[in-house]
């Protein structure tokens, strides 16, 4: 409905060039903002840019849904694939694009008050320039159909992310070592990915992912292909914070500026996970022996380990942002468990959780950003009594927290239900028990914060004002209401996730 309206409103040049425009808008705006050096203008321009990208993403979704093959191919510079770089959008790309662009718009709207509080005035223009580069890289990873181009976009977004994390040093100097460790780990991850792509190139002689996919079935038993698979899984696993490659994540989330934490938690690991899914299901196929082995021996155990161990670690954190960061790694575990089934149902459950988790964590980190702004503290103790003094912020926080736990009538429940169905269908009833156990741990770590907020007297002596500013409350409540709405009527995200899973699997459609 909305999609159709947007499609009707879009001018012809947008319809024709939408895949490229999603990347071009932020890529062009970033250097302009860096030259202008005006914070408020940069904020408005970033909002306009992310909104334009969201518009293009909706146009793309409409085009994919109405296209007979379900694939839009766009040859960059009119150099035809497989020699030229191709942007290839199917239902899976469209889902990720919509997610990244939507979260980009919401978190940019909310960013201004936190940026004023945390970033010094002369750096604000550059800050938004780095943000747009990061955004551009993430969008590019989600649209490109070329393996090497994916590496380049991955590094564009990562390099910008290191800068954004390091800018948290204005508030806490620990942001600097956190950014440095992220840089070392992230660079190694990208390097592993590029080695894997090199092996695939050596075996197939092409870099276009659809072309690689069509040539791999003739290369069964080729060691170079298998080595390439291993390198790609480790590299993208590092970027996606797959347990135990998540060591960079808690510090990077805890010490970066509030706006960055909020944006990264909702998008960065999700996009890396998308890239992993694209390689696992579209380039390689779940039918390959070594891939089945890796599903059963690597992905499923690591997903479960993430779910349980990181939930335990989350229980013992004192800083709310670290609780949420460890919980993020645990939630990545659910998604990995979903895709490790190797079935369309498991993958669609994993993708639904990917979308829902972005909405949940986006809302949680937005609420924490608001509290951080008004109460200057993010430990659990700082949250004491906030349910009374900041009811609007904390109610939204509580809704998202319940959704994270997976209480019925919330989005988190829907995706865990889908994951449970998929596991039962696969006969892994013991994994269902572990999912329930991990949700039980979530009751502990989120409940501890909620208990402090709603059932303890206010303690925090550093309060400057009560509620977060209106500019922050609006996007926060949009996400909180989305959590409830998608918990009652999951038709829209579930349909998107199912289409995306079919697109990831449909080797025929993908080629």
């Amino acid at each position, binding site marked *: 409905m909305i999609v159709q309206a947007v499609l009707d409103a879009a001018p012809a040049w947008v319809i024709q060039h939408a895949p490229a425009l999603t990347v071009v808008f932020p890529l062009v705006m970033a250097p302009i903002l860096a030259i202008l050096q005006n914070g408020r203008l940069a904020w408005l321009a970033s909002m306009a840019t992310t909104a334009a990208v969201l518009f293009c993403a909706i146009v793309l979704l409409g085009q994919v849904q109405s296209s007979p093959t379900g694939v839009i191919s766009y040859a960059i510079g009119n150099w035809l694939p497989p020699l030229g770089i191709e942007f290839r959008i199917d239902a899976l790309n469209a889902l990720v694009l919509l997610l990244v662009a939507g979260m980009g718009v919401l978190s940019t709207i909310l960013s201004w008050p936190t940026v004023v509080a945390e970033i010094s005035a002369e750096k604000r223009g550059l800050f938004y320039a780095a943000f747009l580069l990061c955004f551009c890289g993430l969008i590019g990873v989600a649209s490109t159909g070329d393996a090497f181009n994916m590496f380049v976009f991955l*590094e564009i977004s990562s390099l910008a992310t290191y800068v954004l994390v390091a800018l948290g040093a204005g508030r806490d*100097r620990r942001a600097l070592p956190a950014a440095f460790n992220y840089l070392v780990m992230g660079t190694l991850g990208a390097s592993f990915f590029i080695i894997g792509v*090199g092996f695939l190139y*050596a075996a197939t002689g092409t870099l276009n992912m659809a072309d690689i996919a069509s040539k791999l079935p003739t290369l069964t038993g080729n060691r170079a292909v298998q080595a390439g698979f291993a390198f790609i899984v480790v590299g993208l696993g590092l970027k996606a914070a797959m347990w135990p490659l998540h060591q960079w994540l808690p510090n990077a989330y805890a010490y970066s500026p509030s706006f960055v934490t909020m944006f990264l938690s909702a998008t960065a690991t999700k996009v890396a996970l998308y890239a992993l899914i694209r390689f696992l299901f579209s380039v390689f196929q779940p039918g390959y022996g070594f891939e089945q082995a890796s599903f059963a021996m690597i992905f499923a155990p690591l997903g479960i380990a993430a779910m349980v161990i990181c939930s335990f670690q989350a229980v013992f954190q004192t800083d709310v942002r670290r609780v949420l960061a460890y919980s993020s790694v645990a939630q990545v575990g659910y998604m990995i468990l979903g895709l490790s089934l190797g079935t369309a149902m498991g993958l669609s459950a994993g993708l639904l959780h990917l979308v829902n988790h972005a909405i949940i964590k986006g809302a949680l980190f937005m609420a924490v950003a608001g509290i951080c702004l008004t109460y200057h503290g993010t430990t659990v*103790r700082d949250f004491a009594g906030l349910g009374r003094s900041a009811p609007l912020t904390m109610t939204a926080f509580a809704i998202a927290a319940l959704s994270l736990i997976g209480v019925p009538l919330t989005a988190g429940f829907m995706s865990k239900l889908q994951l449970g169905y998929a596991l039962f269908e696969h006969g892994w009833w013991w994994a269902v028990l572990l999912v329930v156990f991990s949700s039980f741990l979530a009751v502990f770590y989120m409940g501890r914060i909620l208990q402090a907020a709603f059932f303890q007297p206010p*303690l925090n002596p550093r309060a400057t004002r009560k509620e977060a500013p209106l500019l922050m409350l609006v996007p926060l409540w949009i996400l909180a209401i989305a959590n409830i709405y998608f918990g009652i009527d999951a038709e829209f995200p579930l349909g998107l996730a199912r289409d995306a899973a079919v697109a990831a699997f449909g080797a025929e459609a993908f080629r």
Partner: protein
Amino acid sequence: MLEFILERANYWAIIGLMMIGLYIAFSAENLIKRLIGVSLFQTSICLFYVTLGVIAGGTAPVLLGPDMPKGDAAGHGEAAPADSLVAGATERFADLAVTYSNPLPHVLMLTAIVVGVATLSLGLALIVRIREAYGTIEADDVRQMDIDADRAQANADDRDFSEAGA
């Protein structure tokens, strides 16, 4: 056996460099040394790609001799339109008289080198900032200072909160 090893000398060198780089990146306490390790790792990848592009007996990938496109000999005639060059590429590869090395991996590595330079400079900039903020670039010392600061902060918080409670 010896032949097997010697034939793949390039790859052994690459693996060696890669492992040295990885080891330094993980084990060095000095942040600059750690960055050197990462750089070494990235450089070994460039070597890997360049090795992939080499074809035994191949020459530099510039069309020469009988392979020169007709009509634009010596680069002064009508240039062939780019589209027809690409479209006809596969057929043109088939009847080349001279063996050429594959130029594509080299081009890819130009991009990777740019990424590497960006990473290295950003890493060095971060080290400068760490040195300004902590006065040291040893990872151990930085970690210890963080732990101490954490403890001091917790104590200060305790004081704040107990005063507020009283």
